[in-house]
């Protein structure tokens, strides 16, 4: 019996080791691709200036769609940032998706809302009941839809799509603050290549701890909460390197739900967002790509490696667990729905690279990680664990993880340099190290639970994240008070 267990443990160890090696090599390749692209983008930004995009009569108008459920903590800031975009033609469509707090009242008071007859531009099915539609009387291009919630963000977005007027639609989370030029930056690919570009996204960062004033991030800062700090590094790694690398390989699967720009006509052609999906942002991109490939139409999904949006990330383990579980559940739904694309060369790099990667490393990653941890525990229990070898392997895994995080911080520091304070940069580096102990393992557990939920076909339900709102600029930092050197 012991011998059998010994063999099982050894096989599991080798499997985990081989898997980790493959994952690290893939990540390294992505990071190198991403870092190269970011460096090139900083060296030469391309032919077009944003001023020219703003002034061009060829720049298409944009409808910003903001689904909101119990967002009273930050909704006014979010709307102010959205309506304050430097962009030639836009409207904002806010969907109050069954809020039980004062979300609607706050907006109604600030923008002096008046009820109107809805001007429908599409007839996508919406499960929740539309209660009323309102328009701002303050001169702001704002439409507000009130509907009952069915617990899915996609339903609210489909309701917004039904009244959106413009050829491009931008989906924005209600807990996100957009940079003033966010739309210009992300719309640029659509202006330059209107026939081929179908979706575009940019870099999202954690807003917790940043100093804000009326929807504007005055000074990016790191939160005092280590859970938030670790997520800050995660976002840097994922957006600055991972997605840039995927986009460079023409295999970008995810345009973040927090901020993504899409061609409205194509969204309507595919029937809007999948109402059952829990990862509606990735699901949307994959559905669009599948549709365009099937009809033989051009399709470019562009990632703009520049910071455009600041979003609130979970501050507690409980909320983080729910969020990551939902992401994993949604990913499993997506991969199952589009299983015919996986490994299928007809779908290009998406079919042959991105989807297999997401299946092997994103969806099944936690299974292997938990299996590895269990193998170590069993080996220790059986007395066959070689502490020396285990220490070397754990050290190597930590070193590779730290290398990836440090690379992301280095790219940020050498390119965008948004964190002005030295201690914030140092904290990011430390967070990249700390992440390996505890956070990574807990994260694997949350994702495993999401996978199990998907396998057991539990009903997908979107659970809203409790919001704390954005930090006000009540006490500006010393750097802001000191006049700039002359």
């Amino acid at each position: 019996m012991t011998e059998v267990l010994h063999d099982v443990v050894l096989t599991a160890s080798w499997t985990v080791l081989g898997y980790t090696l493959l994952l690290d090599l893939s990540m390294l390749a992505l990071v190198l691709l991403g870092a190269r692209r970011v460096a090139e983008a900083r060296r030469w930004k391309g032919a077009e200036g944003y001023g020219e995009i703003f002034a061009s009569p060829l720049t298409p108008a944009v409808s910003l769609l903001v689904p909101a459920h119990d967002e009273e903590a930050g909704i006014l800031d979010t709307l102010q940032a959205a309506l304050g975009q430097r962009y030639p033609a836009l409207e904002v469509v806010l969907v109050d998706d069954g809020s039980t707090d004062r979300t609607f009242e706050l907006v109604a008071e600030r923008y002096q809302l008046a009820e109107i007859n809805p001007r429908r531009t599409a007839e996508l099915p919406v499960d929740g009941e539309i209660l009323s539609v309102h328009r701002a009387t303050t001169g702001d291009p704002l439409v507000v839809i009130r509907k009952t919630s069915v617990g899915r963000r996609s339903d609210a977005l489909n309701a917004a799509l039904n009244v959106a007027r413009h050829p491009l639609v931008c989906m924005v989370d209600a807990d996100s603050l957009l940079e003033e030029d966010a739309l210009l930056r992300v719309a640029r690919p659509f202006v330059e290549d209107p026939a081929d570009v179908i979706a575009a996204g940019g870099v999202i960062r954690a807003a917790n701890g940043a100093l804000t004033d009326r929807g504007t991030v005055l000074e990016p800062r790191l939160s005092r909460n280590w859970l938030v700090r670790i997520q800050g590094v995660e976002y840097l790694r994922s957006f600055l390197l991972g997605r840039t690398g995927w986009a460079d390989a023409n295999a970008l699967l995810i345009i973040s739900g927090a901020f993504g720009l899409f061609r409205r006509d194509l969204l309507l052609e595919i029937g809007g967002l999948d109402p059952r999906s829990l990862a509606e942002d990735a699901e949307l991109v994959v559905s669009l790509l599948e549709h365009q490939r099937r009809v033989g139409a051009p399709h470019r999904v562009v990632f703009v490696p520049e910071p455009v949006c600041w979003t609130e990330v979970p501050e507690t383990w409980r909320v983080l667990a729910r969020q990551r579980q939902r992401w994993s559940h949604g990913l499993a739904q997506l991969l199952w729905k589009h299983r015919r694309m996986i490994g299928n060369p007809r779908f290009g790099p998406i079919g042959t690279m991105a989807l297999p990667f997401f299946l092997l490393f994103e969806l099944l990653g936690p299974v292997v990680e938990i299996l590895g941890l269990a193998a170590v525990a069993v080996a220790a229990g059986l007395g066959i664990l070689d502490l020396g070898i285990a220490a070397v392997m754990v050290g190597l895994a930590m070193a590779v993880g730290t290398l990836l995080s440090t690379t992301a911080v280095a790219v940020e520091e050498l390119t965008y340099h948004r964190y002005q304070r030295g201690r914030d940069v140092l904290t990011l580096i430390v967070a990249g190290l700390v992440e390996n102990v505890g956070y990574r393992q807990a994260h694997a557990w949350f994702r495993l639970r999401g996978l199990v939920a998907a396998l057991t076909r539990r009903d997908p339900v979107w659970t809203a994240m409790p919001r704390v709102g954005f930090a006000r600029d009540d006490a500006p930092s010393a750097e802001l008070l000191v006049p700039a050197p002359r």
Partner: protein
Amino acid sequence: MSPPVGPALLAGAGVTVLIVVLLATVATAHLLRGRRSARDARRTRELMPLVHALLDDDPADGTAGIDIAGAPAGLDEIVLDLLPQLRGSDRQVLRQVLAERGVVARAVADLSARRSWRRGRAVALLGSAAGGQHIATMAARLQDRSLEVRCAAARALGKAGEPAAVAPLLRATSGARALPQGVVGMALLDLGTSSLPVLREALVAGDGPARQLVAELLGVHGDLSAAPLLEGLLRDTGEGTGVRRAAAGALGRIGSPTSTEPLVRALSGSADASLQRTSAEALGRIGDPVATAPLLAGLAASDVAVRAACADALVRLGREGRAALQDVASGPGAVADVARAALDQLGTTPSRPQPAGAR
């Protein structure tokens, strides 16, 4: 069989060295950034009087009396930043400065550099800093192996402002190394009205994608002379939908009442909802009351977006269109809902008809 400890240790050591190098790079970059920006600011302060002196000089004198060649290297960047904001003689003076300092010659040499960003930067610089004599050199870059460089070449040709660039730009919209239409469109718009005669010719002789782009641009220019050609395209049912849609949109921008008839035909006779919608929008822009009846009929179209576009167009027609909408809005049914939604934009919506028996 035990895991390979030796290679793992070696890999661990390599990764650790990389981390240390990265950390040192981050620390150095962070510490030096403040000093570098202070140095740049100081340099700009020192050089700005020189730039002002150059701009204040009599254009006839050029840059006589100022030691251009001996000025510090930072001058080039300041001049390049200023150039897009200037016009006329000031722009000419700064172009001369860049030529005298060898910046233009270096850019020409960089056009054959191995790295694409160098070629791209060089051609972009030529577009704003050089005159018409480099058109052929820049046009040659429209066939560069890098898409970004090709785009930069197109934009540079637009900024150079020579009508001779129209033909190569239009040719660049097709072929193995075709340029995105938006980039070519912006470059052609930069060329201004001097490009209109060539654009009109291309509307007749060009291929499908080029004609669609040209139709759109003629509309943006509001080129009344192109209206008959665009009307012909819109009438031609054998033409691609994209070209006809672009023609309809352009006719709306131009605003000639002669275009009402073909637009009404497209709205009433086409099976393509996007063409119907664009035609309705164009009729609204033109504002000819003759379109009232067909737009009212469009309120019952099967496509919801066409219905909305027809209602909006009626609002834009003025008194006659709004009166027609008011009539429809006071009735029952889905058409009345569309009319009410459009009138809401003006705040003149009649109240909903009460169901029978309602108090």
